[in-house]
């Protein structure tokens, strides 16, 4: 195992080595053996270390989200272009380069005949995202004689929380969460699963298929696709079940390789059987950290500590949490099991400590914390750190489609309005899951099912007893949403706290390396009130993640009290995420 950086070793604690096929690829010219089913990110981290690439400013970077959002894992694949290593499976003979190289020579561009090209094929419904919300909706729509397309960036259904390992790594008892749902998918009729495919644009059309400008009056939407399936589909209804990603909190050193989202670490374990570090630190505000800790321990990893920003909850708060948690036994059981594992393994758990500084030469070596009043300090040595300060809804498609949105800092930022059938303000578009407010898999499943019923109704189906089910779902949802609201309140740091843990020299936009000081100066000089004006003046939000990791910080800088106006929303434009030009032509 080569260790490019500092001689430290990256463990592959239970990397699949026995059963799976071995394949050969080249990394920066060197021959490397990998297992079929691994992603390029896993192989690169094992072979080159977590900070396997430099960005164009010369800074070392490595994977953060491990789910296709941050683009920090990008590498050049010969003959194709820059791809996200975390969602690209290894293939025999791939040539991979970790430095940014643009080949000027005018090579023959191979035709795209290996891709599955769609030419405006008409579907009744397209479900975007096959996580908990998408899956329950699809189950509802299946077998009704409807033509349903499911579009997802990942290779397999499941989304993030129910992420499945690649086929090569699957065993009978491999996952528990979402198992029941996922096992059923094979029997659902009329579903066209379009995976490893990105929806990069949506266009409103009238009933004859001509482009119109008003989403509200659309009869059809044209969905532009890239990836394994290319071209476009026409759909009568659309369900956006696009999930969420972790909110990353900028503080000095937060962009060092090894500083990941807690979910990113979890996904390496769940779907790649790989622990990205020997000494993991977890920090943030969310109980999800305990769940991830348990998974790391179960996988045989080691945790240096779990650091919560909140103080130890007092009795009154515990009572309140307890009351709201009644009836949510599954969730509580998961948490208590995880807590027991943390205790049994004597993992140090700290409270009331805010991240102050992450340090390391080429990757994270330690993270320093400081108490709220600055009197206490804590330094923890580690080779990887997973943060979770809550989640941000992936609402870009809803914004682009002109759905009416509102801002709720504690529920995931900009989220979509909907009625009691999960229909958005744009009639053909339904929304379910985190896009309506972050709340977790249970709410997402309920909302997905409800959206499925809503979609059936809007397509003219007689609902009969489904109407009763919809009523029940709305009742369940009301109480779950109270729980989610409480969790959001308990885990979201206040804007002034977030501002206080970043200095003027802290990067706020990690893609374009724009500092908090740059933003503050631009606001002071031009009295900007509009987040897009700041983006334009500074490049903050113009990078590959398209502002997903800086929008909230930008909003805090403009308006610390976050009395957000309509102007406080970054424009979301096509492509929804960057796409290779050769794959959309």
């Amino acid at each position: 195992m080569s260790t490019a950086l500092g001689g430290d070793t990256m463990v592959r604690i239970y990397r699949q080595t026995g059963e799976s096929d071995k394949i050969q690829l080249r990394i920066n010219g060197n021959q490397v053996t990998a297992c079929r089913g691994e992603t390029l990110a896993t192989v690169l981290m094992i072979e080159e270390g977590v900070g396997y690439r430099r960005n164009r400013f010369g800074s070392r970077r490595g994977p953060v989200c491990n789910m296709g959002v941050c683009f920090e894992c990008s590498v050049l694949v010969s003959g194709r272009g820059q791809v996200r290593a975390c969602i690209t499976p290894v293939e025999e003979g791939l040539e991979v380069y970790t430095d940014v190289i643009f080949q000027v020579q005018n090579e023959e561009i191979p035709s795209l005949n290996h891709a599955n090209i769609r030419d405006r094929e008409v579907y009744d419904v397209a479900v975007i995202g096959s996580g908990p919300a998408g899956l329950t909706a699809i189950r509802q729509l299946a077998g009704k004689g409807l033509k349903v397309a499911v579009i997802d960036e990942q290779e397999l259904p499941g989304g993030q929380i129910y992420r499945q390992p690649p086929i090569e790594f699957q065993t009978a008892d491999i996952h528990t969460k979402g198992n029941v749902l996922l096992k059923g998918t094979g029997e659902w009729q009329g579903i066209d699963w379009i995976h490893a495919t990105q929806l990069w644009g949506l266009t409103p059309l009238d009933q004859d298929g001509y482009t119109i400008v008003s989403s509200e009056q659309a009869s059809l939407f044209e969905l532009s696709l890239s990836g394994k399936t290319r071209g476009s589909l026409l759909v009568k209804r659309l369900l956006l079940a696009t999930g969420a990603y972790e909110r990353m909190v900028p503080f000095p050193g937060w962009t060092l390789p090894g500083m990941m989202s807690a979910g990113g670490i979890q996904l390496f374990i769940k779907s790649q059987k790989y622990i990205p570090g020997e000494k993991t630190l977890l920090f943030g505000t969310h109980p999800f950290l305990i769940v991830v800790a348990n998974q790391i321990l179960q996988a045989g990893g080691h945790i240096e500590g779990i650091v919560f920003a909140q103080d130890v909850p007092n009795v009154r708060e515990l009572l309140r949490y307890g009351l709201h948690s009644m009836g949510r036994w599954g969730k509580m059981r998961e948490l208590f099991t995880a807590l027991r594992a943390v205790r049994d393994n004597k993992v140090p758990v700290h409270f009331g400590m805010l991240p102050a500084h992450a340090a390391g030469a080429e990757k994270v070596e330690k993270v320093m914390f400081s108490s709220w009043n600055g009197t206490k300090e804590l330094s923890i040595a580690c080779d990887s750190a997973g943060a979770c300060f809550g989640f941000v809804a992936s609402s870009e498609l809803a914004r682009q489609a002109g759905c009416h949105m509102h801002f709720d800092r504690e529920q995931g930022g900009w989220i979509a309005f909907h009625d009691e059938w999960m229909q958005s303000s744009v009639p053909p578009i339904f929304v379910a899951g985190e896009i309506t407010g972050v709340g977790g898999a249970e709410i997402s499943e309920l909302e997905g099912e409800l959206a499925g019923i809503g979609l059936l109704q809007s397509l003219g189906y007689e609902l009969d007893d489904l109407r009763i089910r919809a009523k029940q779902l709305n009742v369940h949802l009301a109480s779950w949403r109270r729980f989610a609201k409480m969790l959001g309140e308990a885990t979201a740091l206040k804007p002034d706290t977030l501002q206080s843990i970043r200095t003027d020299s802290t990067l706020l936009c990690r893609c374009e390396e724009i500092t908090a000081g740059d933003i503050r100066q631009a606001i002071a000089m031009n009295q900007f009130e509009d987040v897009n004006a700041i983006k334009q003046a500074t490049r903050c939000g113009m990078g590959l993640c398209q502002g997903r990791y800086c929008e909230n910080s930008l909003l805090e800088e403009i308006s610390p009290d976050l009395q957000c106006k309509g102007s406080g929303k970054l424009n979301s434009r096509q492509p929804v995420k960057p796409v290779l030009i050769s794959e959309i032509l």
Partner: protein
Amino acid sequence: MSKYDIVVIGGGLVGCATAYYLARSKANVLIIEKGELNRQASGQNAGSLHFQLEHRLVKFWDTLKGTISEMIPISIMAQDLWSTLEQELQADMEVVQHGGLMLAETEEDVDKLKRKHRLEKELGLDSQLLTGEDARSIAPYLGANVLAAAYCPAEGHANPRVVTLEYAKKARESGVEIRSNTLVMSLNRTGGEWKIRLQTGEMVRADNIVIATGAWAAETAQLAGLHLPMYPVPLMMNVTEPVEQVVGHLIQHVGKKLTFKQVRDGNILIGGGWPSRFTTKHGLIDLSKAPIIDPSIARTNLKVACSVVPSIQRLRLLRTWPGVAGVSGDQLPVLGEFPERPGMYVAGGGSAFTLGPAYARLITELILTNRTSLPIASFSPSRFSHLNLFMQ
């Protein structure tokens, strides 16, 4: 009631540059902008500095035959202004004038290129005709189907995200007041001066006003009771991920809509006047909302770019964005005082990024000295007086 020598309406490039040049000559100036500075075409265009006759003019050669030559002296003036602008404003605005290539892919294109080049040569614009081979020897990224190119050494690009803001900064330092997020409600001339009512109810007085509202100029002129044939056009741009510096020229196409350049950050900007779609309300254009991009048009634009620079297919498309530009009824600049309204000036009319500094300089000269360093009579709004014969 505050009184100014000149009120400039519009906080884009032309407005901020005009205010700066006026204030440098000690005039007392106020800029009024309905939104934030630099948020429309001035900041949304792709920053081409193109001095050859561009595609939108060449395409209508026969219609414009009598007037197209008028564009060349103003291009030459702009070329000189850009070459010293960073020094003048003491600012880094990523101005590069590393040369531009206008490409031809067919024999018909080559003829157009030759005809255009002849006229430019006559009027003193520095450019030369290259064969496809010669073009590829200075620009190896060009594909095999480029037959010929017109090379203009002064062409290049600047960063539209910052140029207007730097002009505004210098304008402020020279005493200009700027009121952004402020809408003008009415323009009236009484007692030999202009009274400008703002949305706040406040009234401002001025000896002169300059309309520098680009695509909104017709609306602004209407506040003073006049017609001005300036039309908003919805455009779109593509930008790739940043990559190593490879494209060292401004690329245009004589027969197709295309501009292509690589900026300092490494992104390649691909545009050339491809349309987006206006949002409408009751069937009419609604300028209060940004236009919408049709992915099929973005793809067409990219295909045109790939036909002349095939290797960009390997890049990721990072973003597309729409913008609204203003073009005059006859494609020529609109520059001068309205004969019907003494003390009311207009500056704009198309290509107002490349030509913006020149528009601003010329209108400043006209206001302060009543003469200009270039003849601009044929750009005067008086050519539209027939529309205002019946306006009060």
